[in-house]
């Protein structure tokens, strides 16, 4: 007689799996469809960026930062150049400050559009994905006409920006901002407002405020758990203290609020860009910097609010043109810690959705 027995299903999801963003891998234990244990494995996209930095001069490392969170590369540029400028005590021209804000916030919108798209895709809303990518294209066009590249823009320089935007940039930016409310309405109609989406996301994957703080989660994931913390407000860098904007906070702690919070942030970013467009002064976009950049001996840490979380660079300088040591604190790498705790007890489909709400970009996780 056959002996009846049950056993856990151990499933290796990734690095090649349709719902893993990039090459994330997790070994998941299932009891039927219920998740009982998750072991995340990272490192499949490890390129040793921190070590590479030690053999590159300070300006030469900027293109590498593009490859961290490649969906919002101006942010990575910004974090890095701000760190180096802090080390050098460099003042940059006003116009460059404003342009930096405009590009950083545009990148935030682009990154959040990809988030909404991939979130929709992970619960099989194919068409919502197409709409978000259609509209993100217009931001990429703005990047391309200014910096010459769409994804790895490499736009910031130590002391300013790579160049002044062309004349056709400003009308294109304005028309994008004018069309933005209509776009958001469309995303809401096809994705957020859909009852199936809400059933899939509401109340799923509760990340409590205490847990989020204890795991040092940052970014939209933290703010959806009811913590009002944004580096732009908590420790303003650049000229962020000059703008009037809110930090969207939601208190649902679930996947739906994490998803909806990105929509709120797009609205706030558009607000910041409009103010920057209004106030931007004329002038140069590049400070006077010597050809060979040799920061003084010392060490420095600087952080910015990346669309995915807090992005910080720690640089040790020995006075030579190359950093002695560079360390990257990336948001999603730390945010991923919540996955094995929060996704326990939910179904396989919820696990995919909860992972999608983290908006993980493996370039940033594996570095």
């Amino acid at each position, binding site marked *: 007689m056959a002996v009846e027995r049950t056993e856990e299903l151990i499933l290796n999801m990734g690095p090649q799996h349709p719902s893993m963003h990039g090459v994330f891998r997790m070994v998941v234990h299932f009891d039927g469809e219920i998740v009982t244990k998750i072991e995340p494995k990272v490192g499949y996209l490890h390129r040793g960026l921190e070590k590479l930095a030690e053999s*590159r*001069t300070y*300006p*030469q*490392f*900027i*293109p*590498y930062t*593009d490859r961290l969170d490649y969906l919002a590369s101006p942010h990575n540029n910004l974090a890095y150049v701000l760190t180096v400028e802090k080390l050098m005590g460099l003042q940059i021209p006003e116009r460059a400050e404003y342009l930096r804000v405009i590009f950083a916030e545009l990148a935030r919108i682009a990154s959040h559009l990809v988030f909404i798209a991939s979130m929709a895709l992970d619960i099989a809303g194919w*068409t919502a994905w197409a*709409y978000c990518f*259609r509209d993100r294209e217009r931001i990429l066009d703005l990047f*391309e*006409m*200014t*910096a*010459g*590249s769409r994804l*790895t823009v*490499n736009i910031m320089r130590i002391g300013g920006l*790579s*160049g002044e935007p*062309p004349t056709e940039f400003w009308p294109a930016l304005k028309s994008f901002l004018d069309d933005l409310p209509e776009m958001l309405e*469309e995303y809401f*109609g*096809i*994705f957020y*407002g*859909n*009852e*199936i*989406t*809400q059933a899939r996301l509401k109340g799923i994957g509760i990340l409590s405020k205490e847990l989020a703080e204890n795991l040092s989660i940052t970014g939209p994931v933290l703010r959806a758990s009811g913590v009002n913390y944004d580096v732009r407000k908590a420790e303003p860098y650049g000229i962020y203290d000059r703008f009037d904007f809110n930090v969207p906070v939601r208190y649902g702690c679930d996947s739906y609020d994490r998803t909806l919070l990105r929509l709120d942030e797009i609205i706030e970013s558009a607000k910041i860009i409009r103010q920057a467009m209004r106030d931007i002064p004329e002038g140069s976009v590049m400070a006077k910097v010597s050809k060979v950049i040799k920061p003084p001996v010392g060490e420095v840490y600087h952080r910015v609010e990346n669309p995915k979380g807090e992005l910080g660079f720690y640089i040790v300088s020995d006075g030579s043109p190359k950093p002695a040591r560079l360390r990257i604190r990336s948001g999603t790498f730390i945010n991923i810690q919540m996955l094995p705790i929060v996704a326990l007890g939910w179904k396989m489909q919820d696990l995919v959705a909860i992972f999608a709400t983290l908006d993980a970009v493996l370039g940033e996780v594996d570095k």
Partner: protein
Amino acid sequence: MFGKGLFTGLGITLKRMLQPNITEFYPEEMPKLPPRTRSSMGLDPDKCISCNMCANACPNKVISLTSEKGESNKKVLKTYQMNVGRCLFCGLCTEACPTGALHVTQQFENAIYEADELKWDMIQRARKSGGKEGQA
């Protein structure tokens, strides 16, 4: 009412279904790229003063050039090679060029069949295109 969102979604997709396409028909219609697009690099050998600034600016040692002393003690470019397999297309080399000899072009169809073809002989490429590179 439950189900309202479902019908809104259906309305949006139906509306979009009846609207014209927004895609480009790529090989037949080439995209119009802005002049700053960094799709590949072009060299104007006559303008080049062999100062080696591009090679120094490159983060990945893509560029290697040699020169020889010409008449009136000016450096004349002899070979200029780019190992594009290592190139990040970051544009730092073109920014570093003091004379504008090295510039970005919008020639984006860079796919090749052999690994050896990744080593671009920039002087030869400049001669072949006859200054017409960029009009992709």
